[in-house]
């Protein structure tokens, strides 16, 4: 009996638990407002499942994917502010390669001048290289991550605009549409991609020793180096992964709108991704990270947005409400609050022990 209680207080002190509770609560409120919230229906015409839950997961795809990389960056004790700009860059490059000969066809349709492999490959490679550039500034230049990535945050969108001559292209190329709007196994494609990315990152970090190296460098870079870890390479790889994942998110984003938008694509994604990671229980100071927690964090952020829509709050105030709820979650997870709960449960335990 007592054993169980100690276990319980341990769980209550974990940040991930709070994140799960928060998500459950928000979903519960959604359910109370709209009893059909959890219903999922099958639409034979598109062969897809529909429902609010599916929609939440689908819409959270970009942030979830980016925040997989962000989790690693934060575990290293850094931050990557450039991810939002990289989303715009990926979209710009993809749409540039999806141009067609306007003399032959006058409306957007199923045609492209460059092979599809370039449409997908080049944005990803460029984003990975940009991530590598960030990593290089941090690892070899000794520049703090927040400043190093600020550089691409500032000029990334400029690069995207220069690449597309400041124009907004559209496309109707159907293989490209599949990425953001298609489906597989009755599920929207972004969900499938997200699942693949999450599993890939999880395998890469937890089935190899890479995750342990990241945590070790995040806690104590100097001691890690002296234990033989090549901290520089770890940093390079982590930033490159984050760049690559931002590229994937950028492709999904631009496939959803079948267009590029250098000004608004990925706007504030860096902030959302950082919040997702922190809500998920990874400390900004570096060290232990939890990919599962991050996924939940990202879902929380998206659920809140859905929730706010359901509440019928004007669109302009969405942001404020989102911030408010996130703030509550983060405060509940903060060390003083958790310590307070731990103390209370310990007290209760002591009291019941004394009564016996």
């Amino acid at each position, binding site marked *: 009996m007592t054993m169980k209680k100690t276990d319980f207080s341990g769980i209550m002190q974990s940040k991930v638990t709070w994140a799960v509770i928060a998500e459950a609560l928000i979903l519960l409120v959604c359910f109370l407002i709209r009893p059909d919230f959890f219903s999922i229906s099958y639409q034979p015409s598109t062969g897809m499942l529909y429902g609010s839950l599916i929609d939440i997961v689908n819409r959270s795809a970009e942030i979830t994917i980016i925040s997989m990389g962000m989790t690693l960056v934060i575990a290293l004790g850094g931050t990557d502010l450039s991810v939002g700009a990289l989303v715009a860059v990926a979209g710009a490059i993809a749409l540039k390669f999806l141009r067609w000969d306007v003399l032959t066809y006058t409306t957007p349709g199923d045609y492209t001048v460059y092979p599809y492999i370039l449409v997908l490959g080049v944005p990803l490679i460029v984003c990975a290289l940009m991530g590598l550039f960030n990593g290089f500034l941090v690892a070899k230049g000794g520049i703090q991550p927040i400043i190093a990535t600020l550089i691409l945050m500032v000029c990334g969108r400029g690069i995207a605009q220069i690449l597309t001559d400041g124009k907004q292209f559209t496309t109707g190329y159907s293989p490209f549409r599949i990425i953001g709007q298609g489906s597989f196994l009755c599920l929207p494609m972004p969900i499938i991609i997200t699942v693949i990315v999450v599993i890939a990152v999880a395998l890469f970090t937890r089935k*190899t020793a890479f995750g342990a*190296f990241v*945590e070790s460098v995040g806690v104590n870079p100097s*001691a890690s180096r*002296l234990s*033989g*870890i090549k901290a520089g390479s770890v940093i390079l790889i982590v930033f490159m992964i984050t760049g690559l994942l931002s590229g994937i998110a950028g492709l999904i984003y631009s496939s959803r709108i079948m267009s590029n938008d250098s000004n608004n694509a990925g706007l504030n994604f860096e902030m959302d991704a950082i919040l997702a990671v922190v809500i998920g229980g990874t400390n900004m100071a570096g060290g232990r990270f939890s990919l599962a927690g991050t996924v939940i964090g990202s879902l929380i952020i998206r659920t809140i947005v859905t929730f706010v829509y359901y509440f019928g709050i004007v669109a302009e105030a969405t942001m404020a409400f989102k911030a408010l709820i996130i703030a509550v979650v983060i405060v509940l997870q903060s060390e003083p609050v958790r310590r307070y709960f731990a103390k209370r449960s310990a007290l209760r335990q002591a009291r019941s022990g004394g009564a016996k």
Partner: protein
Amino acid sequence: MPGKNILEMKGITIQFPGVKALDGVDFSLCEGEIHSLLGENGAGKSTLIKCLTGVNRMDEGKIILDGREIHPTGPGNAIELGISAVFQEINLCPNLSVAENIFVGRQPMKHGQIDWNEINRRAEELMSRFHLDIDVTRPLSYYSTAIQQMTSIARAVDIQAKILILDEPTSSLDENEVQLLFTVMRQLKESGMGIIFITHFLDQIYAVSDRMTILRNGHLVGTYNINELGKVELVTKMVGKDMDVIFSLKRAEVKDGAEIVLKAEHIGDASKINDISLDLRKGELMGFAGLLGSGRTETAEMLFGATKTVRGDIFIDGEKIEIKQPFDAIKARLAFCPEDRKRDGIIGDLSIRENIMLAVQSRKGFMHPMTRQEQEELADKYISILGIVTPDCEKKAGELSGGNQQKVILARWMAANPKVLILDEPTRGIDIGAKAEIQRLMLEMCKDGVSVIFISSELDEIIRCSTRIIIMRDREKVAEVDGSTCTQQDILRIIAEGAA
């Protein structure tokens, strides 16, 4: 002669979750007295001090200062009450100047402004009382640990505290600096200040204190006058059992014709070291003696690739190898326990298991991970071999005591199965039981054919264990002596005079 009691602590009890850190401890301090507080790590010395400075709240007990009961609420409040502490591991602000550090939080004002001239003048005056003629406007980080230590003492002195607490002030000082500190302590004592002195160095206790109080596992063992208790009795009282392990240690012996494992020829780094040569035989324990800053650590760091070697060659088993980074050294089966355990050794937020497997894993590269089970086996093996006190291998390494942390780092390297193990001050700041333990382990490894380089500021340790001793001075190797025939005086003379 000590005067009246200025401080009385009665029946202090502090409860931490799960343990009683202090259980009804009494302590008193007289005016003009140096009172040593002794005990192994975890005995409750720091907790008692933290209670006095208001960092920890006590659950029971009374603190009476000058006949009045006080309830310190925090370090700031304690300072106002006249209790000033120089802590072991809490540094000053390294980027501020020496003078700023002395006066931070209570700058003298003139016409509503900070009076910089006054600050610098008074800081200079204070430092010169300690016979330190330094530029007080330079940032603190510019100076050695010793001077940094003096700065925090100067701070306490200037506050005109009634009680000065020195928590392990000497652990990073060399012999001369320790003497300097003692002079200052005696001066302060003459002026009527009561000093609480915590140290692991037994000689220092006898050199400077009037009384001593011994704690063990949160309980008071007793308070004694300095001439009441001999060293052996003291240690026995501290540890709670007879301590003859340390006196039964056998020096590492090298067989004739043992091959040379590590050889360095005329190595030098970019700034400090010019030209060092040495050779290390299989199973040999080589001591590095010398003052702080004599180049002992720098040489070790070069051998391990922690700093770049720009001149000279390093050979392992007769083969020339290039060591550009620690990873290369680990590949060549070198191992290095650094001096600053907290900064360079332990990875506090990770578990003991992860800390131990780190070096093995990094040699393998991250693409060849060890399974969880392998890691656990490895960790459990070394936890039991080294006697690391922990419930299981998942405990955070940062939560262990200093001695146990040191053992975890040692385990990390033993697990990597090294040919050459370099230990930089492995026994600093850990209690006497753990010290003996680590020396014993070192010597056992030598017996198993590992070659050890042992750096220490404590000459008796070096002389007790080393086969050969290299003496360094002003970043040069000045002598190489045989461990079995030399004495402390010999070494001290060489260090002082610079020649064999």
